[in-house]
Structure formats: structure tokens, C-alpha cells
């Protein structure tokens, strides 16, 4: 018997990374800003997105959303009320979205062309672990954290928070009854991802939404 060592040096998620790179090129040449929203279930991704789509629509921007969930099209139906094109992705048990699912759901999307959009939002499956490994071709990864979840969430899930480009603290209208320690939460986000842009919003009252929209507009100008 002879033993031989074969060097491979290949990324385990190489196939996903290649598909994501292809998507990123398509998004860039179409001039559409793509954001991947990631958080635990129940943080308020859909609520923030509902408000964002509505506000963007009112300002004449073209925005669309792909929404990932294990089952049901409840979120897509909720978001469609904003008037923006929305498509549901059901993963049927898979705990994250991957680049192949995004590519597939961009095909045959009635009335939507990438070139006709200013913004495409991807709402990931509620999960703070697995989505961090899967590049979807987005330009901005947004990690969301609600005031009900505990200020140490970034310390518990550093893989995701460290890979984010922006962070949003949601439900700030109920921060006080929740005993939310704002300073501590901001410090924890900054410890894990130094220098990251942090927004504090309430989709319900509209607090912080202007700053969030201004950030989106500023990012959409850069291509």
C-alpha cells in the first residue's frame, strides 16, 4: 500500500461562493443595491421591510423583495401590501438561503427586471448562525437585533455580527419597558464589529427610519 496526500485548498462552499460572485456581477451591472437582512426569528425583519418598502415607494424608488421562510407565504403577502413586487422563497426545512435559491427566484419574476430596480431586499430565514456562511451576492449584509433579545446577542453570535456591514436595533419604542440597556448593546455590537453603522429604529412609530432611508439612498448612489 502507498499513501499519498493530495492538496486541495478549496473552499467548502466554493460552489455557493461562485454563484454569489456571478449574482454580484449581475446586480452591479444592473445598478441595483442588494441587501441581505439577517436576524433571529421575531426580531422584526418583515416589519422593518414593510415600512422601508412603503417609504421607498412613496419617494418614487423602485424596490422589490425576496423573502425566505421555511414554510408559508405569510410574509410575502404582508409585504405585498406595500405595492412593491415581493416573491416568497420556501426552503422547506433548510435553515438559510443560498445563492442558488436567489438565482432561481430571480428567473421568471413577473414584472421585475434587475435593471428596473433601485433596491432589492433579501429577507433571510430567521437564524443567526447558518446564514453567515452563505454569500447571496449582496452588497450590504444587515444584522438586526431587537430590544427584547438581550444586549449580549452580538457576543453570542459573533460569526454573523462580525460579517455584517450594518446593524439595526429594532423595536426601540418598547426599549424602556424591556429594560433595554442601550449603551451596553451599542458597545457589544462595536466590540464584535468595530466601526459598523448602527441604526436604532421602530417600524411602528417611524423612529430612526429617516436615518435608515438616508443610508440606503447614499449607498444606492455608489456603483
Amino acid at each position, binding site marked *: *500500500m502507498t499513501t499519498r496526500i493530495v492538496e486541495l485548498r478549496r*473552499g467548502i462552499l466554493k460552489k455557493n461562493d461562485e454563484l454569489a460572485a456571478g449574482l454580484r456581477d449581475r446586480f452591479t451591472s444592473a445598478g441595483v443595491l442588494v441587501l441581505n437582512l439577517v436576524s433571529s426569528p421575531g426580531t422584526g425583519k418583515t416589519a422593518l421591510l414593510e415600512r422601508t418598502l412603503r417609504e421607498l415607494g412613496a419617494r418614487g424608488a423602485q424596490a422589490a423583495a425576496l423573502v425566505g421562510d421555511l414554510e408559508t407565504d405569510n410574509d410575502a403577502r404582508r409585504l405585498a401590501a406595500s405595492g412593491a413586487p415581493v416573491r416568497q422563497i420556501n426552503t422547506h426545512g*433548510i435553515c438559510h438561503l443560498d445563492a442558488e435559491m436567489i438565482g432561481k427566484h430571480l428567473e421568471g419574476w413577473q414584472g421585475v427586471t434587475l435593471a428596473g430596480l433601485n433596491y432589492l431586499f433579501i429577507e433571510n430565514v430567521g437564524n443567526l448562525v447558518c446564514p453567515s456562511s452563505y454569500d447571496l451576492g449582496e452588497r450590504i449584509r444587515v444584522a438586526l437585533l431587537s430590544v427584547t433579545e438581550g444586549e449580549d446577542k452580538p457576543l453570542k453570535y459573533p460569526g454573523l455580527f462580525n*460579517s455584517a456591514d450594518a446593524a439595526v436595533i429594532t423595536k426601540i419604542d418598547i426599549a424602556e419597558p424591556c429594560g433595554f440597556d442601550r449603551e451596553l448593546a451599542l458597545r457589544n455590537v462595536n466590540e464584535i464589529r468595530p*466601526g459598523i453603522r448602527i441604526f436604532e429604529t421602530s417600524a411602528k412609530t417611524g423612529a430612526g427610519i429617516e436615518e435608515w432611508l438616508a443610508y440606503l439612498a447614499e449607498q444606492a448612489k455608489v456603483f
Partner: protein
Amino acid sequence: MHELSIAASIVESVTEAASAYPRARVKEVRLRVGALASVIEDSLQFCWGLATEDSSLAGAALVIKMLPVKLHCAACGADTEVDGVQSFRCPQCGELASDLRQGRELEIESFELEEPDTPTPEPVEEQV
């Protein structure tokens, strides 16, 4: 939770690369996994057993080398490994450092094959 998908991707890549050695058996697969790769070692080992069962990689060992986070500090210029993944401060000067030089790896480094030695050709019997 996604370790099974990861194990399946490893099986796919190694099976493909090993097909260049049709007589060989894969004994070991070696990975490099960063501390921030969101992969749990025990869970990946468990899924490896499931993913290789009944495949040509059945029985192959999975060796996981975990890599600590390494930060480049813009303030003092040091490249330093840090303990854990709870703080991204430069251990040299204490400044927060966002430039990650190691810690997100999720790659197959190599695999080890066992090949039977080329058998000596049977002597051809002379026809009498």
C-alpha cells in the same frame, strides 16, 4: 444546523478530486476552519458520518484544524491572534481592530489516499 450541508459539500468535492485515483481509498480528509466560520466541530463530525455512509468515502476520518481569529491593527500595525471571538481588540495596544486576517476559513486543505502497490505482472506460462 447547516453542518449536514457542509459535510455533503465536502463529500462532493473530495469524491470528485479523488476520482483521478480510481484504485485508491480515501483515508482522511483535512479541513481548515476559522473560529468565526459558524461551524461546530462535534456537529460536523456527526454529520460527516452520515454524509459518508454508503459512499466511496465511508470510513474516512475527518480532521478539523480550528484557526483562531487573527487581527490586523490599523493603530499599531501588529498582526496578532486573539483568544476567542468575544472581542476584536488588538492584544498589543487595546484598540478595536476590524481588519480580519484569519478566522473565516472554511476549506478543504488536503486528503490522504491509500493506493494498492502496482501488482507484479503474473509470469506468462509458456505453452508446451
